[in-house]
């Protein structure tokens, strides 16, 4: 979706302002926000693509006014309500009002190291050969889907070159919406800056994205 998350090339946000010796957390609640988000995700009722889509579906004014942990928490509330684990009334009163929601899995403290060390690989076998090879010229799709996609606006309808053929990966555009993993080949596609930014582009710059095969056509 053409949402607030799609930031490449946007202007007006000011300087980057890196913080010297930045702490890992800026408040105690951020620690809990990280842990609650990961623990709830570990229940296994939604995938990372649905999580990302919940975050980018915040109202743009809300998204830009929120820190990243705030974005996580707001999206987590949406996911928990959508999947029947909490109600709006419970969020208002701050305690359980009953119900019989059961999780597929509950992440226990003793399992955390193994679960984090294992992660969640998203590569999958694809039942077809890769359509493109390194060096091929490709044009990215011109589309504006209302649902989740990982093709940023700045890289749509642009000609680039296949830099690396990766492997099959879960397709976020369907997986985010419960329509299956539908794995596709992923490629690193590199674009000259002028193709993307046109007049005045930094001539020394090249930008690459990682693109699923259905985002690409031969050029």
């Amino acid at each position, binding site marked *: 979706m053409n949402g607030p998350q799609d*930031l490449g090339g946007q*202007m007006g946000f000011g300087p*980057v302002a890196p913080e010297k010796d930045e702490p890992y957390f800026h408040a105690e609640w951020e620690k809990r926000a*990280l842990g609650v988000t990961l623990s*709830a995700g570990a229940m296994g009722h939604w995938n990372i693509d649905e999580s990302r889509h919940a975050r980018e579906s915040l109202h743009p004014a809300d998204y830009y006014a929120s820190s990243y942990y705030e974005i996580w*928490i707001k999206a987590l509330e949406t996911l928990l309500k959508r999947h029947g684990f*909490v109600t709006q009334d419970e969020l208002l009163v701050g305690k359980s009002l009953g119900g019989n929601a059961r999780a597929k899995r*509950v*992440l226990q403290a003793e399992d955390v190291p193994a679960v984090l060390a294992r992660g969640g690989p998203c590569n999958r076998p694809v039942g077809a050969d890769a359509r493109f090879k390194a060096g091929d010229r490709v044009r990215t799709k011109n589309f504006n889907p209302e649902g989740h996609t990982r093709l940023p606006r700045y890289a749509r309808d642009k000609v680039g070159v296949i830099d690396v053929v990766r492997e099959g990966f879960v397709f976020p555009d369907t997986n985010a919406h419960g329509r299956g993993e539908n794995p596709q080949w992923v490629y690193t596609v590199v674009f000259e800056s002028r193709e993307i930014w046109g007049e005045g582009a930094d001539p020394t710059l090249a930008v*690459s994205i990682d693109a699923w095969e259905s985002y690409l056509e031969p050029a």
Partner: protein
Amino acid sequence: MAARVRALETILTQKGLIDPAAIDVIVDTYETKVGPRNGARVVAKAWSDPEFAEWLKRDATAAIASLGYTGRQGEHMQAVFNTPDQHNMVVCTLCSCYPWSVLGLPPVWYKSPPYRSRAVIDPRGVLAEFGVTLPDETKIRVWDSTAELRYLVVPMRPAGTEGWSEEDLADLVTRDSMIGTGLAREAA
């Protein structure tokens, strides 16, 4: 927001859906165990051991796993090597994708609109804000992490470090140098 997070944790705990002790372990992991020191060891080893560097170039996931760094947001790794001709910089314009297994949790600026918007269009301007000026002719490659590949920049080895131990070399490798918004520290 503190009250809102507390409410969520309380509700989910009362329903038996999460274990608050698990949250403590998660926080401890990313405060004390998984951080940029991991990535610094990978880089120092690549600087010291040409065979490891070659492996890292070819199959970063396996090479990094051989040092014990695996898992969440590091499942599919690619190392990109800076050279005198090309500087590499990593961003996630669409969210906050970052190689947790080697760098830990991302800094706030990495997840925020100024960096995410500008890294792909004005990397030299961004670098200047980090105090980095590259020669005009140096090529810049910006890697937008739009899929599940996670990128680790291997900065150039500082001059005057011949014969240094991996441990001493790792001290020169900053977090920012592995994102591409910095360079390795100079040898003291």
